């Protein structure tokens, strides 16, 4: 899991590549480096965050590549940082992904000296050998790629010539076309402040960047590459005066939810408009929806599965992507497998959706990233339109995922003829109420902060909920543990007494989702069991209820099935403020990276 950047243009490449790396830091940040092209290559790299890297000032160097790393092979050391060079220093390479056959390649290069423990280093050595044989850099890369197995996005440069060659296989790589130069990036965030005109490379494509022109080759033949326009504003990926992206992104939720819903709701017909193409009659014939996802997306899927069963009257199952197999007892043709992944690059989820495809199931992706690998793996994608999310802890994308999946459930319910226009309308009105409901919670941030300050030093935090509140309890606990490093766990409220209650003390607050439809009285009973052991009780409660026994209560506005989604915003703020009080690096928690592209 890494981020790569390349630039070739009219301006000094050093600062541009450095800024690109900062933009991509969410993809990994345990080491970073750049290579600038001149008569000789200048390589600067080290372990640590991008901020620790000092980029040499070479105004004449207008071509460069850079890398920000999240370790998979070899610990984060200066030597293991990219770019990697071979023996001559003529070639520098940055790489995202895993070269699976690097050990055998390395054995075949036993006469050469290796300086790192990475899988990547075989690439510059192989390129050097090809160049020594008289091939140009494009041909060299073409010949080297045929020897590589695994997933990779690669950019390579060569001393003495302003030229970058790049290719990808199952790892993301995007070209950006600006007025004064051409960019390469693991995603568009790398160069969004320079251009919104991009080309998403396909697996096996080789791009050759030279001053003034760009060539893309597929199977050895040059192709006319399409240019698409990205709709995001560059400043949406910047911090906008917030001290952390996470808090910025929490506060963006009303706007991002409006964007998620925009143009998709037809209240007059009680219908949802999504651009989906399935064979005629297919959606009516489906017998099971399978969700495959990881982390926060998995919890969004748990929430969605209940919605699909209630709204679209269809069996829905959820698998952690790395655990997923297409098991027996189901007809692939009547199974729709939905991959839920923010980045669209999550390796486990990509693997699962490929297994579903192999089994013959129809597939669909719900993702935030246009042109991402998952959207090319499946025929139909629905975009959650949350805008770029930089904080490693997912916040606004969870809200937009659940909202998008709810739209999909209504769509399916109407297509299958099991949901009346008036029932659909009432769900859609609740969805349209979400931005306002979330804003109401955000306006209440001061009281959440107060609770976070009061309870920050607790030994552990337990989150409980029922029905739709259950996945939100799991998500609330994940958020807290991710960024505060505190022990936090989520449980189905009814399960508390079947074991976890043994962990409850007077120093373990229990946070509960107490929303309509989630059997409030029973959950309150579970809370009382914890309070009897001295645990403080904190609840997010539907505004139509009053519960006096709680230590802290937060009001959740009316939103039907989506009240737990609004309650979740309290948990996001709670996690943020606990972590902030403890001075944690909230946007980049230790050991975690934003989109996990290794399995």
């Amino acid at each position: 899991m890494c981020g790569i950047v390349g630039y070739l243009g009219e301006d000094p490449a050093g600062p541009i590549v450095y800024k690109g790396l900062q933009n991509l830091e969410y993809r990994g940040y345990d080491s970073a480096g750049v290579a600038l092209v001149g008569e000789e290559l200048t390589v600067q790299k080290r372990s640590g965050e991008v901020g620790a890297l000092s980029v040499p000032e070479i105004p004449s160097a207008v071509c460069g590549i850079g890398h920000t790393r999240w370790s998979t092979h070899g610990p984060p050391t200066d030597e293991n940082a990219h770019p990697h060079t071979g023996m001559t220093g003529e070639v520098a390479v940055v790489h995202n992904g895993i070269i699976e056959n690097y050990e055998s390649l390395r054995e075949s290069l036993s006469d050469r000296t290796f300086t790192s423990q990475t899988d990547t280093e075989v690439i510059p050595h192989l390129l050097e050998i090809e160049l020594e044989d008289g091939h140009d850099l494009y041909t060299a890369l073409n010949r080297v790629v045929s020897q590589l197995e695994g997933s990779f996005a690669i950019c390579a440069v060569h001393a003495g010539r302003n030229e970058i060659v790049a290719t990808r296989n199952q790892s993301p790589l995007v070209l950006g076309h600006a007025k004064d130069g051409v960019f390469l990036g693991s995603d568009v965030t790398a160069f969004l402040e320079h251009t919104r005109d991009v080309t998403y490379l396909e697996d096996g494509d080789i791009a050759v960047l030279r001053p003034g022109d760009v060539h893309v080759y597929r199977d050895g033949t040059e192709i006319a590459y399409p240019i698409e326009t990205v709709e995001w504003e560059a400043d949406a990926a910047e911090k906008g005066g917030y001290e952390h992206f996470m808090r910025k992104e929490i506060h963006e939720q009303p706007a991002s939810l409006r964007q998620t819903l925009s143009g998709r709701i037809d209240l007059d017909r009680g219908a949802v408009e999504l651009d989906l193409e399935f064979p005629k009659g297919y959606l009516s014939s489906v017998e099971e929806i399978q969700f495959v996802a990881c982390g926060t997306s998995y919890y969004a899927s748990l929430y969605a599965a209940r919605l699909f069963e209630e709204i679209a009257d269809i069996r829905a199952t959820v698998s952690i992507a790395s655990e997923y197999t297409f098991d027996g007892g189901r007809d692939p043709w009547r199974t729709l497998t939905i991959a839920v992944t923010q980045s669209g690059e999550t390796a486990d989820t990509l693997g699962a959706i490929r297994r579903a495809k192999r089994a013959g199931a129809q597939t669909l992706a719900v993702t935030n990233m246009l042109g991402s690998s998952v959207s090319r793996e499946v025929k139909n994608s629905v975009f959650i339109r949350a805008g770029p999310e930089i904080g490693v802890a997912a916040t606004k994308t969870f809200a937009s995922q659940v909202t998008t999946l709810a739209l999909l459930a209504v769509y399916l319910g109407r297509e299958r003829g099991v949901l009346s226009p008036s029932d659909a309308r009432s769900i859609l009105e609740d969805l349209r109420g979400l931005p306002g409901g979330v804003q109401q919670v955000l306006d209440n941030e001061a009281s959440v902060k107060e609770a976070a300050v009061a309870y920050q030093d607790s030994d552990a935090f337990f989150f409980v909920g029922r029905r739709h509140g259950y996945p939100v309890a799991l998500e609330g606990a994940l958020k807290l543990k991710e960024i505060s490093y505190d022990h936090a766990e989520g449980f189905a409220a009814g399960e508390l007494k079947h074991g976890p209650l043994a962990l409850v003390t007077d120093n373990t607050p229990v946070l509960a989702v107490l929303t309509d439809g989630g059997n409030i009285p029973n959950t309150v009973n579970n809370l009382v069991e914890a309070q009897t052991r001295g645990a403080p009780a904190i609840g997010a409660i539907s505004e139509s209820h009053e519960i006096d026994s709680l230590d802290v209560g937060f009001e959740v506005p009316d939103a039907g099935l989506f009240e737990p989604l609004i309650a979740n915003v309290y948990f996001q703020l709670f996690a943020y403020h606990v972590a902030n009080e403890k001075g944690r690096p909230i946007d980049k928690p230790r050991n975690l990276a934003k989109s996990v592209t290794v399995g």
Partner: protein
Amino acid sequence: MANQTPPAVILAAGEGRRLEPLTNRRPKPMLPVTNRPLLEYVVEAVENAGLDRIIFVVGYYEERIRNHFGDGDSWDVDIEYVTQEKQLGTAHALLQAAPLINEPFVLLNGDRIVESKLVSDVQETLETTGGPVVSVTPAENPRHYGVVELDGSATRIQSITEKPTGPIQSNLINAGVYGFDQSIFDEITQTTADSGELAITTTLTNLLVDQDVHVVQYRGQWLDVSHLWDLLTVNAALAGQRSGERSPESDKVSIAADTAIGSDVKIGPHASIGGGTAIGANATVEANAVIINSIIFPDTVIEAGAVVRDAVISENTRVGANVTIAGGDTQMVVDGTVYKDIALGGVVGDNATLGGAVTIAPGTVVGDGASIEDGAIISGHIESDAIVRRG
């Protein structure tokens, strides 16, 4: 870089208590007119004057401002933020920006709409004189503002008197756009707080003792929102400057030309949107509703058959079916002052609910989170979170 333009400091930390309940959850500069915050008009005036570096002094509900403006890229300006933790007056607010400034600068209020000409005039005078520069504009009711007297040459300030009670010699008021160099920060630190607040005008009065304060006279658009009803006036004035940007989705809906309609607004059949109206993003107007000369904030729902006239309905509020806000002139009392012939149908705060067929008398102010049950007839001031049942 040669010929660099001065930075602009914009004060946007204030709460605007006189505009409650609308300012209970947002700072005054973020109140929307024609669906854009007041502050956005100020930023545009600054940008159109060719200034590209802006420093916002924020405080009260600052997230709203940071969310909307980000780093300023959408306006082609660079925006930096400084936080005023406690709202201790305009001079105190300006002082917070001192660490970011080492050159002459322009100072503006974030809640006054002015034209870019005023900003560039102040900038020019600042460059030629070195400052300090104060701008003035004629007003119909100067007593509500800082009244400015000029010297005989009409190029320098003689005196500034905040909200004078005695006889006044001038109809010129402080237009709130200034040009200063860094010496102002020393002056501020030597200014004595007046009832707990450090005001720019107090500092200026001290300056007048031994310094020339230069003046820029301005006669362009100068819009101030002092009271709730001003929001409607300003909204209508600015909506009138737009030429119908949006045609109705269907011929079953009637929308006047001087309206502003946000994205993803749903308008039901036979609804009628009259002139001087703004409807915020993601709002819903159901069938047969009539909205005239009103501001509807984002995410609000106006149910079927409601009549909303001369009213401000804040965010995420539900106006029930057949609610009547009839509008018309009324008398308002604010802080002991009586204002007559005010066209204000009513104001409803954020997250409130008006039940079916509620009737609202002109001038009613409903607090945020209040719930007015079906059929109630209300007038006067309804507290936040109050529940009103039919009597």
